[in-house]
């Protein structure tokens, strides 16, 4: 098993910051000049799509975002200091199916330029320092294994230590089955860290993006002081296919969508991507008492 670093040592260690250079990161879309909206079928000039924050200009469909693109949208000048970037999975179960876990990891690394499904950074929102964790669905479906759990927990602890507001942007299919129970226990670990953060009196804003389900929804993502979802984002515990199989009936089209969950009182706000940064900024300023 890989080295497990106790928290005491971590605090003694100097925080290592690595500047993220978004240009080297790979985009979720092919390089073609035109792309077709997955929702309405509209053919969109890619430059326009980027300018529109990866939201379809015709139907408002919110594309999944690479973590670095999300970072560009939410943080001042897209600038941030990443920490714990080197953490990588150790394949504790020696998990093998058609593909070994190591192969899946390598493919995802190749595809995304990331070491795992979350990046954790310190950055500024409207000149105010925040700690932010951003999940990336392209990395094994944004699943939470030991690395995601550890990085999110360290980010929460970093926010506690530096007395900074916390923002976590989730996008995940749930716990990562290739790490078995070690993945499941990350739900408890991250929730325990959030419990400690709650005592600081600082705000934790949880942003749910398409899709956020399973073990991530059933832990830190649902524990925000404020929970925001992007329009039409799928948000839930069980995935729709599992539910359909269990109850043997088709689900309505809006089931588990952000607006549906808002109607059932599960989230505070549904916010369009173009307004997301301003909304988070306003909430943080309000709850830290800095709004005049």
């Amino acid at each position, binding site marked *: *098993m890989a*080295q*497990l670093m*106790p*928290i005491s040592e971590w605090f003694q260690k100097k925080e290592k910051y690595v500047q993220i250079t978004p240009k080297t990161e790979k985009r979720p879309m092919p390089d073609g000049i035109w792309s077709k909206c997955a929702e309405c079928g509209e053919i969109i000039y890619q430059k326009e799509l980027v300018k529109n924050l990866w939201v379809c200009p015709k139907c408002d469909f919110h594309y999944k975002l690479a973590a670095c693109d999300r970072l560009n949208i939410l943080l001042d000048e897209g600038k941030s200091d990443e920490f*714990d970037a*080197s*953490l*990588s*999975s*150790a*394949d*504790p*179960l020696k998990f093998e*199916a058609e593909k070994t876990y190591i192969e899946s990891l390598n493919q995802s690394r190749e595809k995304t330029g990331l070491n795992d499904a979350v990046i954790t950074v310190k950055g500024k929102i409207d000149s105010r320092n925040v700690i932010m964790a951003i999940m990336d669905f392209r990395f094994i479906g944004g699943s939470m294994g*030991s*690395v995601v*759990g*550890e990085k999110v927990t360290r980010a929460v602890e970093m926010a506690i230590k530096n007395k900074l507001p916390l923002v976590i942007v989730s996008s995940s299919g749930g*716990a*990562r*089955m290739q*790490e*078995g*129970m*070690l*993945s*499941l*226990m990350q*739900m*408890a*670990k991250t*929730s*325990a860290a*959030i*419990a400690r953060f*709650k005592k600081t009196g600082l705000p934790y804003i949880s942003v749910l993006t398409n899709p956020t*389900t*399973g*073990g991530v*929804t*059933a*832990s*830190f*993502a*649902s*524990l925000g002081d404020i929970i925001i979802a992007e329009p039409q984002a799928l948000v*839930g*515990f*069980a995935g729709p296919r*599992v*539910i359909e199989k*269990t*109850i043997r009936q088709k*689900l309505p089209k809006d*089931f*588990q969508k952000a607006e549906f969950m808002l109607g*059932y*009182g*599960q989230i505070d706000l549904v916010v369009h991507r173009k307004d997301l940064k301003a909304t988070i900024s306003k909430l943080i300023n309000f709850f830290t008492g800095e709004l005049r």
Partner: protein
Amino acid sequence: MKKFMMDFEKPVVELETKLEKLKRLPTKEKSGIAKEILLLEKQIDKIHESIYSNLSASEKLQIARHPNRPRTFDYVDFIFTDFIELHGDRVCGDDLALVGGPAFLEGERVMILGHQKGKDTKENVSRNFGMPHPEGYRKALRLMELAEKFNLPLICFIDTPGAYPGIEAEEHGQAAAIAQNLMKMSTLSIPIIILNIGEGGSGGALALGVGDRIFMLENSYYSVITPEGCASILWHDETRASEAAEALKLTADDLLRLEIIDGIIDEPLGGAHRDFELVGGTLKKVLEDNIKELKGVSIDKLLDDRYKRLRKIGAYAEK
């Protein structure tokens, strides 16, 4: 008792049926075959030993799901006295798949929570096969807070295939209900002991699973996903669940090795249902010893240790 046969038990069940037939013969005829009966009994013991002493993950899974496996209420009746079942989440329902209430463990006042499956189809339907809705988790949260208020050690019995994946469960906030319990249990200022007595199905099990001591019965399992679900994702073929069960490392032995649990509680050969009182007795002793030990620890240290215990779970490399 109704006979239920797990596939790997076939050779022994055939012999057992034969033995029962011989034993049912009138005494007059039986005297002539006394020797044969004795021989058969010896043979059965031997086969028991050989098939049960080296079970695969998927065989243990079958024992964990055995219809005659003792449930939470069986242990509650056997181990505790004066149990009072308390009901309802104070919002909209009472979930029969998750039960709880105060009781005495010898002289000690405790709070009990547990998933509850049914003994037969009818009870299983009313208890939703031990798969809770958010109402169940919110009832659990309420009873946890009650336990904290009155300083009662909390004992949780885990035995669920998972939280129920249904329409209303989603509408009523299944994910949030589980998350709230995880957060609450991490800071609850009372000793918490977790006993996995059968099925530890993912987040629905974990929602009663954060504590200071975690034990598993020898043939119980604890898994991030059902082996069937895992097989259907990996190979689009649920029938390969036994392969998935091996890969997921979900047995008590595996989880002791991964340092997720503190200990394994032995079961008689073939499973807890074959000698319930033996297992009940062991569980009682384990609970008494651990509560005594945990009550000697200051609350600050208890909570600090509980956090550290979670904090170190995970396997990763770091440059």
